[in-house]
């Protein structure tokens, strides 16, 4: 055991000091990389990172700086259970904290259903390393050989003596952290004893705060001496601030300052009373420069590019070209579209900034506090390490909180007035000033061979960049020319066998800001594939379930897992039973991120009197590998099923001339109680499979299952989402 504190670089020392480690004078890890990467928020964690997240305190409790932001997905709970498993402690012994940006090294943004799938293994190694480090302390203290020091609940047994973890913290220290390294001892990876925390239905420690109104979200933050800011925001995408006449607004009672910052597109007012802000902002005379012309969303129409085979990327082009003689009369073409959509999280975003000459602190809910830190640092002309972001639980994320624009606005205004400033977006701003899910436009040609199986599958689609949607204008053209946006293409590769399979696409940048939205391309792409599979099954006069199973045979291990969930959901929903009039069952499935297989059956009822398409029931079987907390996973599946209903029947943004027409929940429709189906969820676990992606997986096939059920009920095929009774029977 070495004391390495003298060899820690300044940045590392800073966060160790902030978390109390250096003050405690305890051992810190030896092999940790001393260099902080410049842009770490997109890189996966390694085991050295993980060993800095977990500490044993003198009272024996575990402090866990969880490297995931919480927005309801429950990753903080699942990872706490991983820590508890490795250390063998009850839930009451774990204090899971969301770290401030200076308390741990930067970690990857919270996106992509990676909380358990990417972070569970490093967290388990971190906790296991700590356990083995403590074991070494017990060996030293007892004088017994390591073979006689056995791990027990909350500590070790060495001969006749028991050591609680707290007993092993040196008297002059406050806490113990691990040496790095021991990758052999993770119980998650090598399951050498009965599980005690993994697989349990632990309840999230925040639940009581949530149901009593004590949970603090961004909008609830208050700081001493806090002022209130708001701004006039661009009237359309790409508008830049040209001129502002404050017309005496500065002198109005309650107004502290008018902050005009042309370079940063900010026309803001800071007041000592938040109630006066709307009226005061209306008095500002703000002139905007609006961009000429518009690369409008009409560009996202696949039929424009098909005649000339003008697609930027080919995902796959494999197999034998089909013999035209075998497919005569049994071919089909269909086009599918999905709409632009908003995240519409229930909490409109907000932030508090406290910027003075020496320090700058930000309180906000965001999926990437380090990205926010970097943006604020650039705006203020300071180093990123001089900004501290205090992240809070988000009132919904869904990909929409990678940016936190109010944090930037609040920082500029706080820097101006030298006092804490709160900025809260209202619902209209939340709908109009963020980035969005782009439209998707698909065309699929397919045909059957003499066995009634798919001879060819030619799928072309266009949409906009998603992962690179937020790329600055200066680099976007270069990126677009060389990089295929994997987010746009997520889920676009059909899992089914075909004699010849070709999938091409283009990610076309328009002037509509686009970025991460739940599942990225997975749900729109799966809607097209799984609708077309239903159409081809119909053409082949084969049951849609059997048709899918036939095409998954010998297609690989993930296809086998997909077959299993298809069979499971068929059992669950009693697939094949006769349906009453105006009722239909539809099935669809997906493999998500090559980790999770999921299948959904929808039961749709058509009410001709009230002119309504209603999703009555949804059944879902999912295999996401090891389930760390079944309750959390089932809740995520539930949310995804509801999102599938939204995609199928509800959500649509209309964007004209750079302006979003929807401003609130009267014009942007989301599913409500009376429309929400009964749900039945079943989880399968393929043995020896690590935790897979959960937060977006069941969303992928749900809209297609609903569309296929609608076809079964009516004989009419919904190919453009969202649909309703009137568009169906138009």
């Amino acid at each position: 055991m070495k004391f390495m504190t003298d060899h820690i670089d300044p940045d590392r020392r800073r966060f160790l000091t902030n978390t109390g480690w250096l003050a405690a004078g305890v051992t810190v890890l030896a092999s940790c990389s001393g260099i902080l990467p410049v842009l770490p928020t997109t890189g996966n964690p390694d085991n050295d990172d993980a060993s800095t997240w977990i500490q044993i305190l003198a009272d024996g409790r575990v402090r866990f700086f969880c490297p995931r932001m919480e927005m309801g997905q429950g990753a903080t709970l699942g990872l706490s259970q991983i820590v508890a498993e490795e250390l063998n402690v009850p839930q009451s012994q774990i204090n899971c904290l969301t770290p401030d940006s200076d308390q741990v090294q930067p970690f990857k943004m919270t996106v992509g259903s990676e909380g358990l799938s990417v972070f569970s293994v490093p967290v388990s190694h971190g906790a296991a390393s700590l356990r083995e480090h403590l074991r070494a302390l017990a060996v030293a203290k007892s004088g017994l050989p390591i073979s006689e020091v056995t791990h027990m609940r909350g500590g070790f047994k060495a001969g006749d003596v028991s050591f609680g973890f707290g007993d092993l913290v040196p008297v002059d220290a406050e806490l113990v952290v691990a040496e790095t390294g021991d990758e052999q001892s993770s119980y998650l990876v090598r399951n050498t004893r009965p599980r005690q925390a993994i697989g349990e239905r632990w309840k999230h420690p925040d639940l009581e705060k949530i149901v009593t109104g004590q949970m603090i979200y961004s909008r609830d933050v208050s700081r001493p001496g806090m002022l209130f800011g708001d701004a006039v925001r661009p009237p359309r995408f790409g508008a830049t601030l040209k001129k502002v006449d404050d017309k005496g607004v500065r002198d109005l009672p309650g107004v502290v300052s008018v902050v005009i910052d042309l370079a940063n597109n900010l026309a803001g007012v800071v007041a000592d009373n938040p109630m006066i802000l709307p009226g005061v902002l209306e008095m500002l005379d703000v002139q905007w420069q609006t961009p000429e012309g518009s690369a409008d969303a009409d560009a996202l129409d696949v039929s424009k590019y098909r005649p000339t085979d003008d697609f930027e990327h080919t995902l796959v082009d494999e197999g034998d070209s089909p013999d035209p003689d075998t497919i005569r009369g049994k071919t089909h073409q269909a086009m599918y579209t999905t709409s632009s959509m908003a995240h519409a999280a229930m909490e409109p975003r907000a932030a508090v900034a406290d910027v003075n000459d020496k320090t700058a602190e930000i309180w906000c809910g965001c999926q990437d506090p380090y990205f926010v830190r970097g943006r604020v640092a650039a705006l203020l002309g300071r180093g990123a390490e001089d900004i501290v972001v205090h992240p809070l639980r988000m009132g919904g994320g869904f990909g929409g909180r990678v940016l936190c624009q109010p944090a930037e606005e609040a920082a500029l205004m706080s820097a101006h007035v030298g006092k804490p400033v709160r900025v809260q977006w209202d619902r209209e701003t939340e709908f109009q000033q963020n980035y969005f899910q782009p439209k998707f436009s698909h065309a699929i040609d397919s045909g059957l061979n003499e066995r009634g199986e798919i001879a060819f599958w030619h799928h072309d689609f266009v949409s906009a960049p998603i992962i690179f949607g937020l790329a600055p204008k200066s680099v976007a053209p270069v990126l677009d020319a060389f990089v295929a946006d994997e987010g746009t293409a997520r889920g676009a590769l059909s899992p089914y066998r075909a004699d010849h399979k070709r999938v091409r696409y283009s990610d076309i940048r328009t002037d509509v800001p686009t970025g991460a939205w739940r599942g990225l391309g997975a749900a729109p792409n799966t809607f097209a594939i799984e609708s077309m599979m239903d159409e081809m099954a119909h053409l082949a006069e084969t049951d849609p379930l059997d048709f899918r199973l036939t095409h998954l045979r010998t297609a690989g291990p993930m296809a086998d897992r997909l077959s299993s969930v298809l069979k499971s959901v068929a059992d669950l929903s009693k697939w094949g039973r006769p349906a009453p009039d105006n009722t239909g069952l539809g099935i669809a499935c997906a493999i998500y991120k090559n980790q999770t297989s999921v299948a959904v059956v929808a039961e749709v009822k058509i009410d001709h009197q009230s002119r309504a398409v209603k999703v009555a029931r949804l059944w879902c079987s999912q295999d996401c590998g090891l389930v760390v907390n079944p309750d959390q996973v089932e809740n995520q599946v539930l949310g995804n099923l509801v999102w599938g209903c939204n995609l199928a029947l509800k959500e649509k943004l209309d964007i004209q001339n750079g302006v979003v027409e929807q401003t609130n929940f009267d014009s942007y429709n989301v599913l409500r109680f009376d429309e929400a189906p009964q749900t039945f969820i079943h989880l399968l676990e393929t043995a020896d499979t690590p935790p897979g992606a959960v937060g977006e997986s069941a969303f992928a096939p749900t809209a297609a299952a609903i569309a296929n059920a609608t076809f079964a009920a009516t004989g009419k095929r919904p190919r453009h989402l969202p649909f309703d009774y009137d568009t169906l029977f138009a």
Partner: protein
Amino acid sequence: MTTLNGKPLSLPRSMLDVSLLDYLRDHAHLKGTKFGCGQGLCGACTVNVDGTAERSCQLNMSDVLGHDVTTIEGLSATVGGDKLHPVQQAWIDEAVPQCGYCQPGQIMAAVALLRQNASPDDADINDAMRGNICRCGTYDRIRRAISRAAAEA
């Protein structure tokens, strides 16, 4: 007499035009009642006025003069204050919340529903709760939690 969570409330005249939601959050510092839409469309700001569910963003303080306002913070006091209200407990037992932001409003709507109808079926629940959006999609669990609270009452 006007009361807020059981305590008498005297309001200066200058407060009468302030919305109940803004009053609760920025003057009474009761942050459990949430802003969602500002137009009475989403239910996140639901409180109880004389035991009925109301959208606090749609009321001014002048509207609640002489009435009893209960927020999520005052809910457990209505059942003695030493434990959670049965609806809050049911929310935990069914592990309803995901992000949790809409849930204080959902709970206040559910409490008002159960006061009027002690054993609502799913159709009653859907009808009463239609104005409360949960973007995370926990509707099915909320229905279960309300039924559980009704059964255990």
